[in-house]
């Protein structure tokens, strides 16, 4: 058996059937969330029932990708070796303009520069041929 490399990559999410349209959108540079057919509420990640109206029907819709940092944390403990060179790193919760929350990373800022309320916009990071991941940067930044 070959020696397993000490450098382990970050986890790449597997494309599950319920999230297929999200990943297809991300690959094409579109941020997609689920919209309830019953009441119009937006949600992410995919879920089979709307918590507001209990409808089981939904479709994927594109959202603006603009929002604000709602909350964040700074991960110091290493849970996965793919993040070994990055700890401490921040994980943010972005509240999109359309009202749906989205867990992600904020690019271009050091963890301690992040504050709640910062305006952000989506960018896409290509992890593989099939998987691109929506991340965020300060709005207006290039």
């Amino acid at each position, binding site marked *: 058996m070959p020696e*397993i490399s*000490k450098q*382990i*990559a*970050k*986890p*790449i*999410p*597997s494309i599950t059937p319920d*999230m297929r349209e999200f990943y297809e959108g991300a690959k094409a540079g579109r941020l997609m969330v689920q919209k309830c057919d019953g009441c119009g509420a937006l949600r992410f*990640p995919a879920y089979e029932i709307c918590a507001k109206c209990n409808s089981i029907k939904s479709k994927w819709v594109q959202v603006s990708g603009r929002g604000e940092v*709602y*909350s*964040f*944390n*700074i*991960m*110091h*403990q290493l*849970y*996965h*070796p*793919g*993040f070994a060179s*990055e700890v*401490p*790193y921040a*994980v943010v*919760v972005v509240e999109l303009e359309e009202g749906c*929350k989205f*867990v*992600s*990373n904020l690019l271009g800022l050091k*963890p301690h520069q992040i*504050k*709640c*309320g910062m305006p952000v916009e989506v960018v896409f990071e290509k*992890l593989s041929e099939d998987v691109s*991941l929506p991340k965020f940067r300060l709005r207006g930044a290039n």
Partner: protein
Amino acid sequence: MDLRAKCAIAGLGQTRMGKNFDHPGPIGFAAEAVNLALEDAGLKRTDLDGLLVNPGLTWGDNAMASFSLQQAMGLSNLRLTATMNLGGATAAAMIMHAAQSIAAGMAEVVACVFSDAPLRPPAPDKSKGSGSAAAYGFARGVNAAYGLFGVNAHYAFVAQRHMHLYGTTNEHLGAIAVAERQWANLNPEAQFHDTPMSMADYNASRWVVEPFHLYDCCLVSNGGLAVIVTSAERAKDLKRPPVYILGMGQGHPGGDPMETLVSGAPMAKKTAFKMANVTLDDVDFCEFYDCYTFTVLVTLEDYGYCKKGEGGAFVADGKIGPAGSLPVNTGGGQLSSFYMWGMTPVSEGIVQIRGDGGRRQVPKHEVGLVSGNGGILSTHSTLVLGSHP
């Protein structure tokens, strides 16, 4: 049906806590705890007709944990059993289920138990260390791609939001950690009994996930903890003075705790305080669920000791410590004593009502308020315990 003081806690059984390897798994700890609780009450195994089990994480996917424990202990002719899980709110919820069943005549002597065994003895063979990506099979979903792992990280989002909106600081959280450590230093059964901690020690402790230092997070413990619930009438004739269950309530608000920053305590309190016919002025001490320092801060707000957002200022002067005016988590809590989910606050409530607290005994101990909290401010249970009916 008025359940005020209809039932009482008659027995408390607690194994050694922490790095205890007396049993290979959680069932052994549970059985030991139940037998200790029976002995404490002056009862025999054959007196039990009810068994409620809150399985800790190492029970795995044992869907019929209470039956496993029944078989392991050789208990026959139970009239009541259930495996219950609403996270940290379970212990008090089991006691409620027991009390309701006893009051309805469906059982008479019910053991409620939690156990877990996440710690392993140091392995002699270190060659089996993991390193392959396959060892991280948990990291499949989209959150993992962003590096979001574990409950600490999710709770941290909620705490950060509280800090943003209300100006809560790490010094506020630290005041809770230090107060609980001071209590633990008075409790010989606490895992941190021999280790004092100053605010400087708190600030110097490593970050786990900001805004949580190591000492904002609860301990990890092997052990088992059981209580015996019976009717108030029967409890009077048993070995130890009854700890009366004056009030019981639950509250599970649902929704996103990051948005509300409120636990289920306001709902649970309303039901429990009405049943007990008490107000906060009647409460002599509090045993609050404390998976994190932050949980205590929110719980103080939600029971009405201060307004929403003012929890930080409330605890800053050390008033919840041994030298303060409001005794909270008098055994050291899960932060500094031991981590038995909701059984940690329940057990300390019993110790204090009985007056068994030794150096940590609060002077007035007629009415105690006990809370359980599961998930991320998701589930909540309240018990009002009393020394008199």
